[in-house]
């Protein structure tokens, strides 16, 4: 197992754990944290690929033209996307928390299963 594989597998595992958390928890705060976990794991995968995968087009067959096109970008591209995802995650977390707090204000106790007023 190479160096990069560790973080790649870790990223996959974190994603799976995060998705389990989203699926089984009823506290919206914790669901939200699990979503952050998933975002973070995606970031980890991006970072890993940008660090270990940046300039090796010859490992791919020519038939996949999209991937194998000449411009695979520079090593910092992945990092930049991680950075942008972090920023978006910050915005998302703040808005999400504001919504959850607004819900808490009106309901005192929140169970995700009971927030079903928008059902069709």
């Amino acid at each position: 197992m190479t160096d990069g594989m560790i973080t790649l597998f870790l990223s996959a595992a974190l994603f799976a754990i995060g998705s389990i958390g989203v699926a089984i928890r009823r506290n919206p705060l914790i669901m939200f944290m699990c979503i952050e976990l998933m975002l973070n794991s995606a970031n980890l995968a991006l970072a890993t690929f940008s660090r270990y995968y940046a300039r090796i087009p010859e490992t791919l067959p020519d038939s996949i033209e999209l991937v194998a096109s000449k411009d695979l970008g520079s090593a910092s591209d992945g990092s930049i996307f991680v950075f942008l995802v972090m920023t978006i995650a910050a915005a998302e977390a703040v808005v999400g928390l504001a919504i959850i707090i607004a819900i808490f204000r009106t309901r005192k106790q929140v169970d995700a299963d009971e927030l079903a007023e928008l059902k069709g």
Partner: protein
Amino acid sequence: MDFIWLVLALPLLGSLLCSTHYRALGKAATGMLASLAILGAFGAAAATWFRVHAAGSYTSQLATWLHIPGVSGVDVAALADPLSATMLCTVTGVAFLIHCFSMGYMSDEEDYGRFFASLNLFVATMVLLVMANNLALLLVGWGGVGYASYSLIGFYRQKPSAVSAARKAFLINVVGDVAMMFAIFIIGSRVGSLEFTSFLGPASLDRMSGETILAAGVCLMIAAYAKSAQLPLHTWLPDAMEGPTPVSALIHAATMVTAGVYLMVRCAPLFGHGPEGADLMVIMARLGAITALVAALCAVAQNDLKRILAYSTMSQLGYMFMAAGVGAYGAAIFHLVSHAFFKALLFLTAGVVIHALHGEQDIRKMGGLGKKMPGVQLAFLIGALALAGIPPLVGFWSKEAILLGTFQDGNMERQLLWGVGILTALLTAYYTGRAYVLTFWAPARHESELHLPGSSMTWPLAVLSMASVAAGLAGHELVSEVQSLATHLPVAETHETFGALQITAILAGLIGLGVAYSSHKTGRASLVPDSAVPVLLGCESIDSLSKGAAGSFRSFADMVAVKVDPVISQQAPDLIQRSLYGTSSLLCQLQGGSLRLYAVAVLASSTLLALFVYGLFSLSIGAGQ
């Protein structure tokens, strides 16, 4: 020094300041500011005129405007040549006097700032129109003049008639704008340049096919006819009298209606090229003559002072188009300039009269003003004599130039045109004289106290009177300059003789005036029997024609609204609602409301997607290997 852009910039700046700061400035300062802006523009125009005459024509490029593949010359650039320099001087000079007049005339109005802002804008757009060196920039001024006239004709916006008159003027002008755009499209696509000096050059004219010249020329003519109120697009002009009198003066004298003549002279090489161009010119001359005659007949039947003047403008414009049609471009522009002076004088004098009579415009209710306002009477008299073509006033020289240019030995058509011109001159002298006599000499038919004008209203009249007398001096030079510019030919020095033609014209004018004096000095309202009035007003029937067309559209719309619409409006929403409801109740099944269900659904679908992509990937790798 290149002053030409100042001619545009100063009125624009004045307009901006007047519209934004008039509250801070107060009435007096606003009017002063607007007038000063125009005065500055006039100074710059004069400087440009001198430069053109000292150093020849030039083009001043300010900016590149549009990059259209295949079309060049769409720039913000000014063309300074004798034609545009003369026009600029006329426009700004007359406009300055009218501005000064307005300061007194409009002093009782509330919307002082709006008025002067619009007035300045009007001048600015006209200046832009005149100085543009290409058709596209000219169109900007063309449309701008239409807008500014709209806002000025409808200045009394609480008056329904003013508003509808403004709308009418705007709509008819837009017909011209659209025609202009078509002309631009045709010329741009066929020639590849919109610059006057380029597409009117002999080389590119030779490249144009006859059809192109015909189409472009017809479009340009429609545009000019709409702007210059020629038959059959003339109906807006008499109605435009709803605006304040200074505005009428501006529209009729310096800006707006002269634009059409200017365009025809500017594009003269196009009309002078080939058999198609000649055909167009014949049409132009005939239509011009007809307009001149018909408008003069209309004027005879009018009783409203301003409307008489309005129809006379139409008639004189007809003269100008006739001149352009027979190739006497210099005479056309000369008449334009001289007409600017005396028509401005007439309108402003009419404004003083109307002002003095508290808004009364009917000449049947005037009279006896000569004794009370001798100065005004003199001014009106000078204007009237100039319009009637009595020497030595400027109107005589310019009208003579046109009639001389029209008459041609041995050419029946030209002689006929000349005859129409003489007839029109006779009628012109008559109705002008009638208006003058009824207003100033006939016994008074009003009791109210006169509202005498202040000095700010009178000194522009003095200046214009002077100009109406003296402008004839410059006529010869102007005619030959413009003529050579328009036809690209040097004008042969002709020795004008004081022959039978001139004498006929003067006689026509004198007869007209004499008839007017003898029949109206007692206060008799009209020579025309009432039954003949509708005949004379025939040209106004076009209005009712268009009204009829509009009425049929309206009744069709009424029919739709009553018969068709209810059916659709009741059935269609029902149908839409039912189908939407059905769809949504289907989709509602998907909305369980449980957050976790959604989460799981998202997860499951992304898993499926991942599997799909993975499968695709393996397949293609397998295929690749």
